[in-house]
């Protein structure tokens, strides 16, 4: 992959946000806040940090990127299209009949997504399986697992958190999209998660808190995990849901709805202005 500079990454993240808005408008259903909040991290991963090859999506030494909270897949599809996994024109087919871009990612239709996901709390377990497999083979690639904060209300996530620590899965990095919202409201009202960092430390993880909207910090944090050899790494990304579109930011009502034509126009105007 081409080694993008911080400025190039910032520009790419803005383009990806614009394409997310277009895709959501076209689809008419889906999730807005999460994909926009994670756009910077996906950009850093696909255009700088991940070892991957869009022409050989099953290259055996690639880093594995496991998306646990499958509902934010619009940001992944857009990033993948920009990276060259499939033509950008296919983004229009998201959530439509006969498309390989399912509402929640389908491994059978698009193997490059590594796993099918959607039901929450299952990704970290699967990432542990990938990491164990790599350790058994003595393979050097890294396993990245993206999770949401809300899915830490699922017991299965903590079952996996214990296992990663027990088996010293130092080849596993989890990035939590800590955007504080879920469908019914604010996480700390629905079912409090704090102190999340302390919980992970108690579970035997190396915890890093990160500002995910500062590209320099994102890149240095993600590139820095290679040097952490003792424990699995948990990066808590304090994301702003809806980031980049002021009327969506930090409003849980944008979790699971899409913009109408007028709202999309306003969102694109704002994003273009920021570019």
């Amino acid at each position, binding site marked *: 992959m081409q080694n993008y500079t911080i400025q190039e990454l910032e520009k790419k993240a803005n383009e990806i946000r614009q394409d997310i808005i277009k895709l959501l408008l076209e689809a008419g259903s889906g999730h807005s806040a999460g994909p926009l909040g994670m756009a910077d991290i996906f950009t850093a991963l696909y255009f700088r940090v991940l070892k991957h090859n869009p022409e050989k999506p099953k290259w055996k030494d690639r880093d*594995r990127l*496991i998306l646990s909270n499958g509902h934010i897949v619009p940001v992944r599809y857009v990033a993948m299209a920009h990276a060259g996994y499939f033509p950008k024109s296919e983004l229009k087919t998201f959530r439509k009949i006969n498309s390989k871009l399912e509402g929640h990612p*389908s*491994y*059978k239709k698009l193997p490059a997504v*590594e*796993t*099918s*996901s*959607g*039901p929450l*709390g*299952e990704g*970290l*377990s*699967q*990432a*542990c*399986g*990938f*990491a*164990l*497999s*790599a350790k*058994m083979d003595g393979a050097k690639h890294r396993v990245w697992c993206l999770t949401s904060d809300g899915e830490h209300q699922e*017991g*299965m996530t903590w*079952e*996996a958190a*214990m*296992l990663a620590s027990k*088996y010293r899965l130092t080849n596993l990095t989890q990035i939590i999209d800590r955007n504080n919202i879920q469908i019914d409201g604010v996480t700390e009202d629905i079912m409090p998660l704090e102190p999340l960092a302390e919980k992970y430390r108690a579970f035997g993880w190396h915890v890093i808190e990160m500002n995910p909207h500062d590209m320099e910090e994102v890149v240095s944090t993600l590139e820095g995990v290679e040097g952490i050899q003792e424990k699995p790494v948990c990066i808590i990304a304090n994301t702003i849901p809806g980031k980049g579109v002021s009327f969506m930011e930090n409003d849980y009502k944008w979790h699971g709805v899409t913009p109408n034509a007028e709202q999309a126009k306003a969102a694109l105007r704002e994003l273009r202005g920021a570019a």
Partner: protein
Amino acid sequence: MQSRLRQLCESYEELPKLSLGAPKLSLGRTAKVSMNYYFSKNYLDEKNIQQEPMRNGAGLGMAELGAQHKDVVVLAADTAESSRAHYFAEKFPERFIQVGVAEQNLTGVASGLAYDGKVPYAVTYAAFLIGRAWEPIRTTVAYPENHVVFVSSHAGLATGPDGPTHQMTEDIAITRCLPGFTVIAPCDAEQARKAVLASYPMKGPVYIRNCREKTPVFTTKKTPFEVGKAQVLRSGTDVTAIGHGYMVYWLLQVAEELKDKISLEVINLHTVKPLDAQTLVTSAKKTGKVFCAEDHNIIGGMGSAVAELLAEKFPVPVFRHGVRDVFAESGSAKELWGKYGLDKEGTKKILLEFLRNVK
């Protein structure tokens, strides 16, 4: 409209095209017992036949596979010894994963291993393996067609004194309804071993159902086994008696006891999905009556699967003998079999009632 209906029917279960010749392994009407099956010596002598739990055979199978294939991984959830995963763990500790009391994680980790090219065997009690983790099985294994083999112990009332929480009688129902699942319920410990060995080169999710209790080992190393191929163990003309698990043994005994009055055709339907439609329909056409026997809820089990098939392909009276939609209770396996009619005597009585009613 009609072609739409046909399309729907064709996509449902993908039944093999029926050619209604004699089943390959049957010796025809004159032979009572097919010697192709190499049964153990004096196999109908219940007092002297070797008795062993199926879980032992499954455990041995996994240990054998471990020696043959470096990509086999076994995962346990705090029941390694009682579900016999420890046979493998002792030989191949570097490929054994102990997840603790966490069946959802057991499934998720197995899924990740399978995605990455390993052949994982997830092993624990049926109630937890299949029941506790059903949605993760659906999403992380069945939907992406991952080749994970779920090997249970403690299926059915044969679980005994642990009581209904541990007596899993719905596992066949909730695995066979998942697209792409292969569901195998071996008839004895030796067949459980063979089923585990046969599962390795398969594709997609597989469930192998095993019991805790010792049951007669009437097949031998020489007995053939092919996933998806029902075994006509005994030819008959009056009624088709289909079983899986240890109940196949009772059916063979009942057939012998009744041989002067009724000619029973005994089929070991070890693979509940995909169904061997050809063998089942051929037998139903011959006898016109079908009796299914299993240690599983009659709703959704093997009897349901057979009834669904015959309702579409060749409707004949079908009786589903099994656990009659109840939760049972603690007791020894033998006591439970007696009380719930799943022993040889109960099975015989219910079979005779069925025959009286359909005549």
